[in-house]
C-alpha cells in the first residue's frame, strides 16, 4: 500500500522533470526572443516586459512569409512524389521475390544510408548542367530521390504484412497487377502512408543541406535557409534570430498539437507492424 502511494507521486514527478529537461532549450530561445537587444540579462529569466518587436523584425527583415510558402511548396511536392513513387516501387519489390528484386532492395537500402553530402560536389555539377539550380523542380526531385529509399523500405516492410490471399483473390477476379495495387492494396497502406508522410515531410521541411546548395536565390529560399542567414556572420541581432527560429518551428508544432495522434501512431504503426 505504501509502495503504490509513493510510486503514484514518484512517476508524475519524474515525468515533470523530463518535461522540464526537454523543453528547456525552447524555453531559453523564447526568453531570448522576448528580450530587447540591449537587455543582456541571463537567458533563464523571462523579462518583465515582452518585446514582440523581435518577431515583427524577424518577419519583416527576412521575407519569412515567402520562405514559408517556398518550404510549403517543396514539402508538399516532395511528399507527394515520395508517397506515389515509393508505394509503387515497394509493391513489386515486396511481392515478387526474384533475384533482381532482391538486388534492387539492397540497392535501395544502400542509397538510404548514403550521406547526401558525400556526392554533393558532382551532384551540384549535374544539377548545374541540368539548369536545376534555383528551381523548385530540381530540389524537389533531389529531395524525392533521397527520401525515397526510406519510403520504399517502410512500404515494402508493411506490404509484406498484408496477406497475399488478397491480391490473389483479386487476380482471380480479373484484376491485373496494377489494379490490384491501386484498388486493393493502396487503401490498405493508409496507416503506413501516414508514417512515410510524417518522416519525409519533416525531413524536407527541415532540410538544410540541399537547400543550401541548390536554392541560392532569395526568392527561392526556404525557412531553414532564412534562419541560417539570420544567424550568419552578417547579422548580430540574436534576439530577432531567436524569434525567427521560434517562428520556423511554429507550423510543425501546431500540426503536431492537432495531429498528435497521427504523428505518434503513424510512426509506430509503420515501424512495428
Amino acid at each position: 500500500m505504501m509502495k503504490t502511494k509513493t510510486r503514484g507521486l514518484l512517476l508524475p514527478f519524474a515525468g515533470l522533470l523530463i518535461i522540464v529537461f526537454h523543453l528547456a532549450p525552447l524555453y531559453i530561445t523564447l526568453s531570448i526572443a522576448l528580450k530587447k537587444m540591449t537587455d543582456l540579462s541571463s537567458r533563464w529569466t523571462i523579462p518583465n516586459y515582452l518585446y514582440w518587436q523581435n518577431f515583427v523584425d524577424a518577419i519583416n527583415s527576412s521575407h519569412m512569409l515567402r520562405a514559408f510558402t517556398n518550404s510549403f511548396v517543396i514539402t508538399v511536392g516532395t511528399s507527394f512524389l515520395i508517397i506515389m513513387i515509393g508505394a509503387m516501387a515497394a509493391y513489386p519489390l515486396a511481392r515478387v521475390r526474384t533475384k533482381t528484386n532482391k538486388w534492387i532492395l539492397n540497392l535501395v537500402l544502400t542509397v538510404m544510408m548514403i550521406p547526401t553530402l558525400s556526392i554533393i560536389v558532382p551532384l551540384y555539377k549535374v544539377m548545374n548542367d541540368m539548369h536545376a539550380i534555383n528551381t523548385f523542380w530540381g530540389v524537389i526531385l533531389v529531395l524525392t530521390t533521397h527520401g525515397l529509399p526510406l519510403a520504399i523500405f517502410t512500404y515494402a516492410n508493411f506490404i509484406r504484412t498484408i496477406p497475399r490471399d488478397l491480391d490473389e483473390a483479386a487476380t482471380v477476379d480479373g484484376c491485373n497487377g496494377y489494379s490490384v495495387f491501386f484498388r486493393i492494396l493502396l487503401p490498405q497502406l493508409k496507416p503506413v502512408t501516414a508514417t512515410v508522410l510524417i518522416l519525409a515531410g519533416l525531413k524536407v521541411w527541415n532540410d538544410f543541406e540541399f537547400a543550401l546548395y541548390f536554392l541560392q536565390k532569395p526568392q527561392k529560399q526556404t525557412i531553414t535557409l532564412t534562419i541560417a542567414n539570420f544567424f550568419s556572420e552578417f547579422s548580430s541581432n540574436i534576439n530577432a534570430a531567436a524569434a525567427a527560429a521560434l517562428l520556423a518551428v511554429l507550423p510543425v508544432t501546431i500540426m503536431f498539437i492537432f495531429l498528435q495522434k497521427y504523428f505518434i501512431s503513424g510512426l509506430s504503426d509503420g515501424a512495428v507492424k
Partner: protein
Amino acid sequence: MKVFRRKWTSGSHLYVMYLPALILFAVFVFYPLFEGVQISLTNWNGYSQHYQYVGFDNFKMLFTDHKVITAFQNTLVYGVGSTVIQNIWGLAYALLLNQVFFGRKWVRSAVYLPVLISGLVMGFIWYFIMQYDGGALNDIMLLFGMERVDWLADGSRGVKIILFATSMQFVGQAMIIYLAGLQTIPKTYYEAAEIDGTGAWRKFFNITLPLLMPAIIISVIYKLIGGLQLFDLIVALTGGGPGSSTHSFSTLINSLYFQSQNAGYATALGIVLFLFILCVTVVTHKLISRNEVEH
C-alpha cells in the same frame, strides 16, 4: 496479345512500377557518383574550366590528413554513439511511459516535440546554452558558485556535446517506436512470468527485449542514418571547430568544397565515405535478413 496479357497478370511486368524510382536514383545518385569518381582524380577547384588529372593523389592525401582522420572518428562517434544512446535512452522512456500515471501523455509530447525542429535551429539553440559568455549552462554554474567553462573550446568535449544534443533532440523518435513495440507484447507473457516468480530483470531480458526486436531494428536503422549523416546541427553549433576537431565527414566535405575550393579532394573524401557507408549497410543488411529468418 494473349501472350502479353498473361505476362501482365503474372507479375513480372510490375517492374515498370519501380522504374520511376530507379530513374531518380540513376540521375541523382549513380550518375553523380560516376562523375564524382572522375572529379576525385583531378585538382578541380569547383568552378574553373581548367583542371588537371592528378591520379590518386587526392586519395593518398586523405589517409595522412589529420582533419580527415578526426572527421572519420567523429562520424563513427556520431553514428554509433547516437544510435546506442538514443536507443537505450528511448527504451528507458518507453518503459517509464508504458506505466499508467498522471501526465504521461504530456511527457510523451514534450520528449517528442524537439524531433520536429530542424537540426540547424537546434544547433543555434545549443549555442545559446553552451556559449561561454552568457550561455545558459554557465549561468547555472555561476549560480552554484562554480567557475564558468568554455564548453566548446575543447574539441573532444565538443564532440560529446554534439552527441548529447542530437541524442536529446531525437530520443523521442526511439521512444515512440519502443512504446508501440511494448504495446504489442501480450500482458499474459508477463503474468505467466510472474506466476513463475521471475524477477524484473529476467522479465526484461527474456520477454521484453526479444519481443521488441523488430522495433529495435527499425529504430537502429533510423538512428544510424541520422547519426552518420549528421550535418546541420554541427554547422550551427561549432561549424566544425575549434580548428577542425568536431567535423563530421559531411561538414568537412562542405567546408572543403565551399570554403577551400578543393572540389577534387572533397569528392575523393565523399567517395571514401560512400564506400565506408556501403560496408556499414552490408552489415546492417545481414542483421535484417537474419531477423527475417526468425519471423
